[in-house]
C-alpha cells in the first residue's frame, strides 16, 4: 500500500468567514442536478450525488478531477444551484438583527454620521476582546432598531417580526392606518442585505470582504465530497447511503420540482409551498435539531445525523476527534510495585513489548542488530513487526516472509522493532491533574502482565496498587523521543513547581528504614554492610575504617554507611522531625556557627538524633527521617538536586530507598496491637484525666444552668458553654495523649513511624492506645438526632460529655454501642466531605484550566493571551520559574552565604 500523496505545508493562520456564491462555484468540481446516486449496475451517475468528479470511494475507479484512485483522492466539492434562495438557519438570528439595524430603502445602518464615527472609534478601542465587542455590537443594534425613520434617506421604517426558524414578517400599515403583516421571502431579504454598503458592516459585526450579509441567504449549496459521506456496502450487497447523502437527495428532488414548476408558470401558492419545503430540507440538512422544525427521520424512524450533529457534543468532531483522539502505540494495564527498578524506569510486560514498536532507521551501525530482529519476526522477542522500504512501503513481517525481508534489509530502510530496555516512553495515570501526571520513563521489559513502577513515583501519579491501571505511550520520532528525554523524564520532576520542593522522595518504609539505619547506636557487621551495599547497588572499592571493634569483631555505624551514598563535599545541617528537645540541638548549632566545619570528633560527642549535621558528605549527627529525603520536605534530596543535578539525585534516591528497604527487612519491622499496650499505671492516669475533665464539664453545665456563666464576647451563652466544654475535652485528650507518649518510646514501631513521618501521626497512636476523644460534625459536638438528645440512651437535655459524642474508650479497649454510633456519625461527615470536595475542586479546576490554558509567557517575560493581550507584565510578578525556586523564593540567601563560606574554607 502506498502512503497517501500528501502535500506538506505549515498552517500559518486560519480565517473564518462566510462562503460567497462565487467561491462555492469556484471550488466546485461539478454541478449536481440528479437526485440519485448509482445506476442499476452500481456505477456512479454523472451529475448525481456520487459523481466521479467529487472523488471516488469504490476501489478500481478513478477520480475524474484529480485522476487519483480510492484512498489517494481527498475528494472534491460539488454544488447545487438552488432554484430559489433559502435562509441559512445558522444565520437566521443574525439576519434578523441586521435587517432590524438597517434601512429598508437605502440599506444604510440606521445611525447618524456622528454616531457611526463614534462607534467606529469605540470598536477600534475594544480590539479583539470578544465580550466587550459583543456588548458594543448589541448596543449598536438596540439603538439602530429603534429608529423608525432612516437618518440617511428619510424613509419610514417598519418593525420586523421573526418567527422561528426562518420566517420574517414586516408589520406594515396601509393608507388607513391598519396594520397588516407582510411575509418577507428570502429573495426580498437578500435584496435588502445586498444594499448594505461595505462601510457600515463593521458596526454590524461583519467583515466586509470575508462575510457579506447577503451570503447568509443561500443561492448555491456546496455539496461535500463523497469521501465525507461514504456509502457502506452491507454483507447482503445492499448499499446504505450516508445521512448527508439522503438529505442531499431530498434537497435535489424538491429543487428540481420547484424549478420545473417555476418554468411551467405554476401559481404563486404552489411555488411558495415548494419553496418552504426546500427551506425545510436545507434547514435540516444543516442542523437537524433546529428548534421549531420536526427533525428529518430515517426510514427506520431514527433522526438523521446532519452537519451540525457531526460537530456537536462529546463525540462530535471537535471534542471527539480534534481536542481528543484515539492513538496508536499505546498500552494500558494494571500497575504493581517494584522497588528494585530505578525511579525513571517502568516495567513493561513482554506481551506489550512485542506489540508496541519503535521505528528505527537502518544505518551501517545497527544493520546487524536490526537484521537479527527482523529475522526473529513478530513472534520472537526481540523482534520486529514491520519494515519500511526506502520507497515508504510498509511491509508486515510474517513467519513466511521474515527471511526474505532480513535479506533485503539495507541502509535506508526502517524497521519497526519491538520495545527494548532503555527505550523512552511516556507513562500516565488519570486524572491528569498536573504535569507530573505524565512523565517519561525508560523501558524494562519484564515477565508477567502488569506495569511495574518504583514506589517513590507513586505520589506524583497519586497511584496505589489496589487495582489502578496506567497508560503508556511510545514516542515514534527522534524529535519526540529527545523531547521526552530532556523535558519529561522522572528525575526532572523531583522538584515540584507547586511549592519548589521535592514531590518525589522516599515514602513509608524508606523513611522508617532510614531511621533504623542511622539512629544512634545502630551498628552493623562486615557481612551486613557488604550485603546492604550490594543490595543498594553502591559501587565502592573499599569499605571505610570500622567505627568500632568489639571482641575482635568490626562494626560500622549506620551513619557511616549512609554517608557512602552522599555526594562528596555535601555540607548541610538542620533540625529534623525527631528534635523534641531544642536544648540538645543548640550546642551543635552554636558549634557550627562558630567554626562552620568543626572537628568531626567534637560533633560526634554532641551527636543527637534530632539534629542532622552532614560535613563533606559524612553524616556526623542526627538520624534520617522524612526531612532528609521524604517527599515534600526532603532537605538532603533538595540540596542534591540543586547542587549536584537531577541525575545524581536519581541515583541517590534509588540507592537510599533500596538501602532502607534492606535494613527494614533484615532488622524486622511490624506493628501489632501490643504496640499500643500501656502499663496499668498509665491507664489509671488516663482514666483520672478523663474523670477530671468530665467533672469540669459538669461544673460548667451547672454554672450555665445556674446562670452564673459569663458569655464570651460575640457569643451567646450556649455558644460560650459549648466552646468551653470543647476546650476542656480537647485538653483532656491532649493530656491523655501525652501520658501515652511518655510510656511509648522509640523502640515502638508505631511511634517510630509517627515521629519520623513515615506514616501516621502521634494522634493516631493516642486514639488507639488512650482514647478517641470528641467526635464532631461541622466543628460542633454531636447534637442532632432525637429531640434534645442524640440517642435515646440519654436523658433529653443532657449536655454532658458522653451524651454529646465524647468517646472515652480507645480503639484497643473497644467502643460502647453508643460510642460506636457517635464514631460512625463523625466518620460519615468525613466521607461526605471528601465526596463533595472532589466534585467541587474538579469543577473549579476545569473552569480554571479553560480560562488559563492559552496563556503563555512571552520572550519579553510578559504573560499574554493568544491575541497578545497582556495579563501580567512580568510572570508571577518576579519572573521566577517556581520549579527552579527555593520553596517559592527566588534565592535561598542563607544557603548562598554558607556555600560561599564553604568554598572559601576549601581554598585555604
Amino acid at each position, binding site marked *: 500500500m502506498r502512503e497517501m500523496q500528501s502535500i506538506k505545508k505549515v498552517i500559518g493562520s486560519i480565517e473564518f468567514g462566510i462562503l460567497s456564491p462565487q467561491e462555492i462555484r469556484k471550488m466546485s468540481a461539478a454541478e449536481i442536478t440528479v437526485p440519485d446516486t448509482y445506476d442499476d449496475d452500481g456505477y456512479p451517475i454523472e451529475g448525481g450525488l456520487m459523481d466521479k468528479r467529487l472523488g471516488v470511494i469504490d476501489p478500481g475507479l478513478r477520480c475524474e478531477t484529480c485522476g487519483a484512485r480510492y484512498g489517494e483522492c481527498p475528494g472534491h466539492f460539488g454544488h447545487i444551484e438552488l432554484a430559489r434562495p433559502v435562509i441559512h438557519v445558522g444565520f437566521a438570528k443574525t439576519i434578523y438583527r441586521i435587517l432590524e439595524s438597517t434601512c429598508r430603502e437605502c440599506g444604510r445602518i440606521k445611525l447618524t454620521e456622528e454616531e457611526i464615527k463614534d462607534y467606529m472609534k*469605540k470598536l*477600534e*478601542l*475594544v*480590539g*479583539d*476582546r470578544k465580550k466587550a465587542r459583543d456588548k458594543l455590537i448589541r448596543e449598536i443594534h438596540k439603538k439602530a432598531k429603534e429608529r423608525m425613520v432612516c437618518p440617511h434617506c428619510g424613509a419610514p421604517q417598519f418593525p420586523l417580526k421573526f418567527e422561528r426558524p426562518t420566517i420574517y414578517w414586516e408589520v406594515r400599515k396601509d393608507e388607513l392606518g391598519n396594520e397588516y403583516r407582510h411575509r418577507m421571502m428570502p429573495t426580498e431579504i437578500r435584496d435588502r442585505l445586498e444594499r448594505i454598503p461595505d462601510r457600515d458592516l463593521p458596526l454590524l459585526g461583519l467583515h466586509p470582504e470575508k462575510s457579506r450579509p447577503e451570503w447568509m441567504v443561500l443561492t448555491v449549496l456546496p455539496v461535500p465530497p463523497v469521501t465525507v459521506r461514504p456509502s457502506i456496502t452491507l454483507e447482503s450487497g445492499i448499499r446504505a447511503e450516508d445521512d448527508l447523502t439522503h438529505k442531499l437527495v431530498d434537497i435535489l428532488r424538491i429543487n428540481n420540482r420547484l424549478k420545473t414548476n417555476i418554468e411551467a408558470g405554476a401559481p404563486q401558492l404552489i411555488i411558495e409551498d415548494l419553496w418552504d419545503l426546500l427551506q425545510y430540507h436545507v434547514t435540516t440538512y444543516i442542523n437537524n435539531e433546529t428548534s421549531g422544525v420536526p427533525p428529518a427521520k430515517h426510514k427506520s424512524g431514527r433522526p438523521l445525523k446532519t452537519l451540525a450533529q457531526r460537530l456537536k457534543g462529546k463525540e462530535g468532531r471537535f471534542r471527539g476527534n480534534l481536542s481528543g483522539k484515539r492513538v496508536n502505540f499505546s498500552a494500558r494495564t494494571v500497575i504493581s510495585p517494584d522497588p528494585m527498578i530505578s525511579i525513571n524506569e517502568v516495567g513493561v510486560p513482554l506481551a506489550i513489548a512485542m506489540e508496541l514498536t519503535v521505528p528505527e532507521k537502518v544505518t551501517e551501525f545497527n544493520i546487524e542488530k536490526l537484521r537479527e530482529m527482523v529475522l526473529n519476526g513478530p513472534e520472537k522477542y526481540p523482534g520486529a513487526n514491520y519494515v519500511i522500504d526506502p520507497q515508504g512501503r510498509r511491509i508486515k513481517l510474517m513467519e513466511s516472509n521474515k527471511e526474505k525481508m532480513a535479506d533485503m534489509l539495507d541502509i535506508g530502510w526502517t524497521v519497526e522493532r519491538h520495545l527494548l530496555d532503555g527505550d523512552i516512553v511516556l507513562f500516565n495515570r488519570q486524572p491528569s491533574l498536573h504535569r507530573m501526571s505524565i512523565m517519561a520513563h525508560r523501558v524494562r521489559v519484564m515477565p508477567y502482565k502488569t506495569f511495574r513502577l518504583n514506589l517513590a513515583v507513586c505520589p506524583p501519579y497519586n497511584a496505589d496498587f489496589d487495582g489502578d491501571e496506567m497508560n503508556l505511550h511510545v514516542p515514534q520520532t527522534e524529535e519526540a523521543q529527545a523531547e521526552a528525554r530532556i523535558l519529561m523524564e522522572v528525575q526532572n520532576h523531583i522538584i515540584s513547581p507547586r511549592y519548589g520542593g521535592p514531590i518525589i522522595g522516599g515514602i513509608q518504609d524508606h523513611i522508617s528504614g532510614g531511621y533504623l539505619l542511622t539512629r544512634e547506636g545502630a551498628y552493623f557487621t562486615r557481612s551486613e554492610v557488604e550485603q546492604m551495599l550490594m543490595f543498594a547497588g553502591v559501587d565502592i572499592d573499599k569499605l571505610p575504617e570500622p567505627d568500632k571493634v568489639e571482641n575482635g569483631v568490626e562494626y560500622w555505624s549506620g551513619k557511616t554507611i549512609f554517608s557512602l551514598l552522599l555526594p562528596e563535599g555535601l555540607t548541610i545541617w538542620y533540625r529534623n522531625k525527631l528534635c523534641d528537645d531544642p536544648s540538645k540541638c543548640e550546642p551543635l548549632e552554636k558549634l557550627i556557627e562558630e567554626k562552620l566545619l568543626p572537628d568531626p570528633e567534637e560533633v560526634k560527642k554532641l551527636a543527637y538524633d534530632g539534629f542532622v549535621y552532614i560535613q563533606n558528605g559524612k553524616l556526623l549527627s542526627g538520624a534520617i527521617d522524612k526531612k532528609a529525603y521524604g517527599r515534600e520536605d526532603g532537605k538532603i534530596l533538595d540540596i542534591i538536586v540543586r547542587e549536584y543535578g537531577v541525575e545524581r539525585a536519581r541515583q541517590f534516591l534509588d540507592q537510599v530507598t533500596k538501602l532502607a528497604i534492606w535494613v527494614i527487612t533484615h532488622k524486622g519491622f511490624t506493628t501489632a496491637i501490643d504496640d499500643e499496650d500501656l502499663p496499668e499505671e498509665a491507664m489509671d492516669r488516663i482514666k483520672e484525666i478523663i474523670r477530671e475533665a468530665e467533672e469540669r464539664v459538669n461544673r460548667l453545665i451547672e454554672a450555665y444552668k445556674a446562670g452564673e456563666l459569663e458569655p464570651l464576647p460575640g457569643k451567646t451563652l450556649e455558644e460560650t458553654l459549648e466552646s468551653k466544654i470543647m476546650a476542656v475535652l480537647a485538653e483532656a485528650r491532649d493530656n491523655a495523649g501525652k501520658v501515652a507518649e511518655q510510656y511509648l518510646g522509640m523502640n515502638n514501631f508505631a511511634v517510630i513511624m509517627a515521629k519520623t513521618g513515615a506514616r501516621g501521626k502521634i494522634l493516631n497512636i493516642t486514639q488507639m492506645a488512650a482514647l478517641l476523644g470528641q467526635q464532631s460534625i461541622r466543628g460542633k459536638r454531636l447534637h442532632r438526632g432525637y429531640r434534645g438528645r442524640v440517642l435515646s440512651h440519654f436523658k433529653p437535655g443532657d449536655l454532658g460529655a458522653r451524651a454529646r459524642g465524647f468517646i472515652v474508650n480507645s480503639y484497643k479497649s473497644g467502643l460502647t454501642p453508643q460510642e460506636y454510633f457517635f464514631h460512625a456519625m463523625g466518620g460519615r461527615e468525613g466521607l461526605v466531605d471528601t465526596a463533595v470536595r472532589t466534585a467541587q475542586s474538579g469543577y473549579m479546576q476545569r473552569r480554571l484550566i479553560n480560562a488559563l490554558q492559552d496563556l503563555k509567557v512571552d520572550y*519579553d517575560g*510578559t504573560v*499574554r493571551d493568544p*491575541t*497578545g*493581550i*497582556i*495579563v501580567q*507584565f*512580568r510572570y*508571577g*510578578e*518576579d*519572573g*521566577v520559574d517556581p520549579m527552579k525556586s527555593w520553596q*517559592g523564593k*527566588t534565592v535561598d540567601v542563607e544557603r548562598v552565604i554558607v556555600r560561599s563560606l564553604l568554598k572559601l574554607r576549601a581554598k585555604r
Partner: protein
Amino acid sequence: MAAKKGFNIFAHELVPEHRILSEEEKEELLKKYKIKISQLPQIKAKDPAVQALGAKPGDIIEIKRKSPTAGVYYYYRIVVED
C-alpha cells in the same frame, strides 16, 4: 468626578499608588512591550481609584503594587468607558 470630601482612598493601606502616565511615557510603554492600546489590561472609568485621580478614558494608569515575590511590581491599565 472629584473624590468625596474628607476621604482620600489613596491614604488607605490596601490601596496601591496610582499615577497617570504622560503622553511620552505612554508612547514608551507601548513601544517597550510592542503592543497596541487594546492589548493593555483595562480599568473602568468608574473605578474609585480612577475617579479619584481624575483620569479620562484613553489615559494609562500606572499602579505601583507591593508584591510578596518581587518587592515592587508595576502594572499598567488603560482607562476605558464603563
